[in-house]
């Protein structure tokens, strides 16, 4: 009677509804009957919560997630199990309020998380697009669509979701991450075996590239200071990076290194200071400003090497977001923070993997924009960067406490082995190691 196969199947299917059933559902076999009905109807289930009565008079309770591949199948199953007392937990549409002041939400707006979210409109669940934490939800009841909207983009008259009713959130399953990061869990530790971790990251990067998905790298200027530019350039050239997010500093130091061979006036090859070197970074910025843009600088031969140069040459998108302490800044730096955030949001839309290296503020800024299902690896000598990311809601972050140079070198070595191209050569590695 009770077919074990439905229970053994994982809960899959894109159409989903939570149902609850209460009463003497164990002794009467109503619960197994419901579960069997779901399986027989072509659906799958997951018992999210169950409370068994302690005495014969106590009722039991079960909260069951029902999934099916399509809406018709799901509705057929729900109709069938409703006869046995399993009823959907959500029976009301979400509540909408009209934004009365541009750039603000109505009071009692629903504040989003970075988890997959759906709202109920016209009796049907609709996936919220552009998932992002700390936004509101803009709903289109006619077109039956919904998307996250930042406060600043709200226009007067926008229908905004209010309260929690008719909104449901699907927390990312940890098991999905365990496929690749099982050994690391998500905690930050200085004690983790880094080589194993880095190999896993390399595999992830490679898998992402092979699948045609997009990878973003968020990088701080330490990549240049530590002489690790070559490794990041390798990632850019080999198609592992599709989007670079940074500030004025990384780009300025990268260009200074390309034009003068120094980083903040210190010779990268020898580590020694250079006379007049303190002005190199400003001269570098000035030269690019004179060219009009980084792209112009590359195309006119002003800039012929470095990370940004490779980005331009290999068609890798980059966003440079400014800050109040920037020198210059470079002409490509977006100095309006809201505009920078908007551009980052837009370009991050299809990213599925994000590597954050040696920058706290840009990492947190990017983390805030990413949905929870984007895999994030944060490599930083400062453990607080990954902790900050997690504290601010980017729970999916895998933290790796490490100096940037050995991390990137090891990562590139792993990728090179995988790519079997023999790069970087021993000579290059030796040269870099001396720095």
């Amino acid at each position, binding site marked *: *009677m009770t077919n074990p196969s439905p229970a053994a199947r994982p809960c899959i299917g894109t159409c989903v509804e939570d149902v609850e059933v*209460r*009463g*003497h559902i164990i*002794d*009467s*076999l*109503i619960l*197994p*009957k419901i579960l069997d009905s779901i399986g027989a109807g072509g659906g799958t289930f997951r018992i999210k919560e169950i409370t068994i009565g302690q005495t*014969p*008079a106590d*009722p039991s309770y079960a909260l069951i997630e029902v999934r099916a591949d399509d809406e018709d199948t799901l509705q057929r199953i729900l109709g069938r199990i409703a*006869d*046995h*007392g399993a*009823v959907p937990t959500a029976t009301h549409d979400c509540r909408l309020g009209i934004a009365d002041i541009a750039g603000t939400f109505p009071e009692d707006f629903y504040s989003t998380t970075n988890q997959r979210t759906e709202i109920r409109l016209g009796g049907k669940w609709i996936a919220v697009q552009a998932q992002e934490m700390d936004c509101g939800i803009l709903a289109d009841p006619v077109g039956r669509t919904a998307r996250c909207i930042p406060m600043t983009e709200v226009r007067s008259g926008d229908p905004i979701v209010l309260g929690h009713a008719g909104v449901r959130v699907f927390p990312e399953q940890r098991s999905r991450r365990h496929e690749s990061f099982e050994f690391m869990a998500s905690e930050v530790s200085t004690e983790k075996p880094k080589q194993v971790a880095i190999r896993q990251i390399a595999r992830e990067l490679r898998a992402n590239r092979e699948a045609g998905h997009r990878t973003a790298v968020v990088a701080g200027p330490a990549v240049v200071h530590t002489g690790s530019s070559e490794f990041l350039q390798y990632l850019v050239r080999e198609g592992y990076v599709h989007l670079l997010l940074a500030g004025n500093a990384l780009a300025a130091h990268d260009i200074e290194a390309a034009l003068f061979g120094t980083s903040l006036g210190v010779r990268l090859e020898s580590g020694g200071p250079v006379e007049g070197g303190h002005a190199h970074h400003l001269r570098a910025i000035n030269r690019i400003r004179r060219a009009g843009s980084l792209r112009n600088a590359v195309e006119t031969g002003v800039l012929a090497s470095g990370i940004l140069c490779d980005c331009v040459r290999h068609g890798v998108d980059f966003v440079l977001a400014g800050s109040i302490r920037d020198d210059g800044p470079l002409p490509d730096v977006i100095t309006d923070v809201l505009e920078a955030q908007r551009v980052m949001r837009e370009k991050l839309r299809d990213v599925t993997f994000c590597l954050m290296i040696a920058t706290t503020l840009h990492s947190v800024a990017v983390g805030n924009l990413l949905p929870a299902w984007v895999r994030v690896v944060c490599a930083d000598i400062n453990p607080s960067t990954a902790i900050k990311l997690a504290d601010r809601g980017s729970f999916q972050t895998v933290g790796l406490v490490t100096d940037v140079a050995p991390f990137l070198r090891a990562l590139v070595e792993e990728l090179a082995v995988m790519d079997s191209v023999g790069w970087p050569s021993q000579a290059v590695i030796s040269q870099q190691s001396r720095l």
Partner: protein
Amino acid sequence: MSPHFLMCPPDHYGIEYEINPWMDRARQSDHTEAVRQWEALRRLLETCGATVSCMAPVAGLPDLVFTANAALIHVRTAILSRFRHPQRRGEEPHYAAWLADHGFRIVRPNAPGAFEGAGDALFCGETLFAGYRIRSDIATHQEIAGILQCRVIPLELVDPRFYHLDTCFCPLAPGKAIWYPAAFDTYGQKALRDQIGDLIPVNEDEALRFACNAVVLGDRVIANTGCPELRRQLERRGFTLYETPLDEFVKAGGSAKCLTLRLDEDE
């Protein structure tokens, strides 16, 4: 204290509509015979030591005679029915009025859907067994469990001929009951087997004679005629079966149990 039943004389009884497979307006009941059978049942109950109270029949409500569907009685609480079919909804205020006038606390379930009283809810020991899908909905049974603070075992009925639980299941004593297994789905059959140690099955022929629609008075069982196998099974267990002809009511899908509502249930 003697067992106490509510009955309603068949003054206006007849097959005026068809809401179950038994009813056929072309196969009308014989009124004189129906009255005779009803009176015989009433006398048999009284002979067995029961008290019978009668409510006034109402023209246009032919099924008011089936008082088992008035409510579920528990001590002095009456959980009122809400009939599935509109043809019977007119009975509800009459049952409510009679029960309220006779001191019962009236409870109307809040859950949406139908509930047809003692026709679909029968105690066996401390547990309430409740039939659902054809005439009653499971949501009401779940609510009743909370109202009465008792264990309720819902049982899905799958044969339209046995549309109420009391047409296919009859508790005799704690742990002992008569049943017609094919009226239940496999889950219901297993649940009943798990919960009741001595289940006496009746065959299809006797089930169709409404063998399960019996009135139990201690070790005496009253049912329609034509159930010899049930008689043997009951006698083997120390029960006595009293048969009384009720064919005129079988034409409407009812028999001894349907024609009576036990008022002192579980006192």
